[in-house]
């Protein structure tokens, strides 16, 4: 049972551009999902998000379950109504937030036990409960509760987590009460071990879920390991289902993962970095706090079409950032616009057959000296994208096959 349609509209080798029809919105992939942890994207109104082309917002189940509670959201007809967002929503399972935010979280076969941040009492989040909460929140896409392990950990714990994730997916499927309105995505675990990742992919694919996520990445692993896991998973996941790389990422990561055949991303980076005064630009980042910006009369990015770049100079933003709420509002607006424009450019260049040129232009701006990182060169080699025109380094894919 699924409540989505995924139609691939264009391909370039492994990269694909698709139309993803969800109950609340028809999206175009590759797509970036801004993180709206507590039922709002920090400092932006919903019409502004529509204006800059946001298609899906990610909500954090753990935070929403604490405040305002999933029962209250349910009373208001779901999160779409509560926050007045007409387009698509995705909620995570809550497990990752608990493990990463709470020191005393412990994972057993039953679920994730943790100390309540409200009264300190021990609490338990089971796969059934996570799904029940997400059913009440009502997002278009909900995520299975998985056993999250840091990618930097090795040994039997990784294997245990992978097998537990597979056992839990059945409990999640059984608990899911709204399969006609909400799409349950399974999460591939298995650390950096290709054998474990493969077992997990096969196990999840057998369950025929509406979509699949690649989990356990963006946790401090080295970049070469990161892209290899993505490449392995995208190669064995079904062509006809969306693939979501969780917690990714930086603009460069998104371009690389898209070349490898991934479709969806989420990251707090654009809004978080905005609050610290950093703007995303084709060249990388622009630190508006820096003294050199104080009298700079240029816009953040002269090629950006967003409201902020049309109206404001770096000099003005320099005096706002990290001091006034408006500084982070305007910078978040630009940064999200940048990420969403990047997604649109990925989609259209794949459709138009100009994907390699797009990738080369992207890399040329970010690495004008041609010093494209080796991991990117290696990934592009696997993706079949010739970047020799913009890179001086040569790919080293010794352990390919």
């Amino acid at each position, binding site marked *: 049972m699924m409540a989505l349609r995924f139609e691939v509209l264009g391909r370039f080798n492994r990269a694909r551009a698709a139309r993803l029809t969800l109950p609340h919105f028809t999206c175009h992939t590759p797509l970036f999902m801004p993180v709206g942890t507590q039922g709002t994207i920090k400092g932006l*109104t919903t019409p502004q998000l529509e204006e800059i082309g946001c298609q899906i917002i990610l909500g954090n189940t753990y935070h929403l379950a604490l405040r305002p509670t999933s029962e209250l959201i349910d009373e208001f007809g779901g999160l779409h109504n509560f*926050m007045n967002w007409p387009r698509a929503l995705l909620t995570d399972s809550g497990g990752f937030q608990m493990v990463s935010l709470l020191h005393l979280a412990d994972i057993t076969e039953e679920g994730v036990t943790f100390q309540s941040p409200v009264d300190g009492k021990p609490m338990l989040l089971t796969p059934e409960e996570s799904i029940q909460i997400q059913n009440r929140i009502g997002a278009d896409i909900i995520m299975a509760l998985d056993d999250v392990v840091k990618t930097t950990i090795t040994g039997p714990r990784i294997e245990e987590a992978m097998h537990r994730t597979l056992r839990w997916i059945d409990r999640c499927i059984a608990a899911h009460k709204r399969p006609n309105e909400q799409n349950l995505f399974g999460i591939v675990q298995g650390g950096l071990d290709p054998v474990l990742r493969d077992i997990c992919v096969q196990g999840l694919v057998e369950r025929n879920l509406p979509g699949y996520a690649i989990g356990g990445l963006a946790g401090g692993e080295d970049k070469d390991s990161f892209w290899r896991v993505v490449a392995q998973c995208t190669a064995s996941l079904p062509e006809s289902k969306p693939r979501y790389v969780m917690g990714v990422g930086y603009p460069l990561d998104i371009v690389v993962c898209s070349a490898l055949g991934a479709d969806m991303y989420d990251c707090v980076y654009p809004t978080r970095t905005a609050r610290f005064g950093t703007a995303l630009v084709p060249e990388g980042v622009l630190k508006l706090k820096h003294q050199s910006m104080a009298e700079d*009369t240029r816009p953040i990015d002269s090629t950006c079409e967003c409201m902020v770049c049309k109206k404001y100079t770096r000099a003005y933003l320099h005096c706002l950032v990290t001091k006034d709420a408006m500084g982070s509002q305007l910078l978040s607006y630009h940064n999200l616009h940048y990420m969403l424009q990047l997604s649109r450019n990925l989609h259209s260049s794949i459709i138009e057959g100009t994907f390699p040129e797009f990738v080369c232009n992207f890399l040329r701006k970010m690495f004008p000296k041609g010093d494209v990182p080796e991991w990117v060169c290696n990934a592009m080699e696997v993706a079949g994208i010739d970047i020799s025109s913009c890179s001086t380094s040569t790919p080293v894919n010794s352990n390919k096959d």
Partner: protein
Amino acid sequence: MPQAERRERILDGILQESIRETHKMKFAVKAWSKSGRARVGLLQLSTTSSSFAQGGPPAKEIEIETPALLLTTRKGLPAFISPDHLSSLPNPDSRLLQFSPMHFMEGPNSKTISAIGGVHQLLGLHEYGFVAVPRDSILSLPECNSSNKNGASFETPCGRFLVKPVEYMKMISSMKPDLWVSLADEVHASVTTKRNKASVDRTIKWLDDCISLKSTDGALFGSIVGGCSIEERQRCAQEVAKRNVSGFYIGGFGLGDSVDERATLLHAVTDLLPKEKPRHVCGLGLPEEVLQGIAAGIDLFDSTYIYHLTLGGFALVFPLDGKCKHVSDPGISAMASDGTKINLKATIYRKDASRIVDGCICYTCQNHTKAYINHLLNVHEMLAHILLEIHNTHHYLSFFGVIREAITEGRFEELRESFIEKRRDHLLAACELETPVRLRA
């Protein structure tokens, strides 16, 4: 990208060619209240620009009815309302923005602001009128103990600054506001008679300095001070009225003075001012203070009050039908409401699916419930303040509309009395419950 290139060229063009703009201000009184002091007027601002053909700002014409609320800004923009949402506020009522040149003490410097083309270009708001007032009651507070005969001292988030008339005029000529207020020595109500007298002398001298240093054609409002002394207030008003100014700024209120003596002081000043010129005041913000100021013949107010309300999680709810029946819902405790505003942090709004004000056409009320704003406040999300500032600004602008209508129709005194009476009743009720809701100490 050709469009981006074009914009770059436009920005370059602006930098190379100094813009020749001509600002004009006109003011006419349209109606008087029965008591003869409160008035409805029309303030017209027009800018003609020689550089429009080269991509410079277009000519503009703004007509604002007074009494009017100027939107208080931080560095030229409202604290939370971004420029795209600014345009959804009532028009043209919301088209006057007040800022303090002191907001830019840490940059950009005057040369850069001048190169960018002044505040209109800096903020990308060409269709708005900008009013420069040194003091703003939020970020730029007069620090009278540090002011001296050379200049006025201001306490700002980036430190304390002594500003001399020549420096102030440099800022004004680079920022090119439509209206600007002369530098004043605003003192606390508790200062000695001698210090208060000195503040009047300095303020008049600095006005003369500003006039002689004037290089911009924005309209100049002469500052009137005098603290709590009727004689000094009158002396200052008379001297300023003799000068070549387009209007008046009445300062020195909201600095430890008592509300009870304010009417007398205001009347002493406004009775001496020529009737055909507009009057702006700082330090009066609460609805009853605004009504008091209007009753004394004030035309322009700032919206510092809205900023404080918004930060505190309050939303204005008093009726705007001119009848001023205050909300007296027995279900709402005195903690959550004082009859004019509600505190959306209160738990009674946790599940409240209604709008802040039924029938309010502001962006916030058209799109969001009290429960959602309550949630945003609980989790300290910035969107709460954005939504509250939009509603509160909208509501207060509408309040000014109601007042103008009442003056025009000859029932301003009734409106004021009924408003104050209802509010007094409610405050008494709140006191009896021993839960007085005070926004400001």
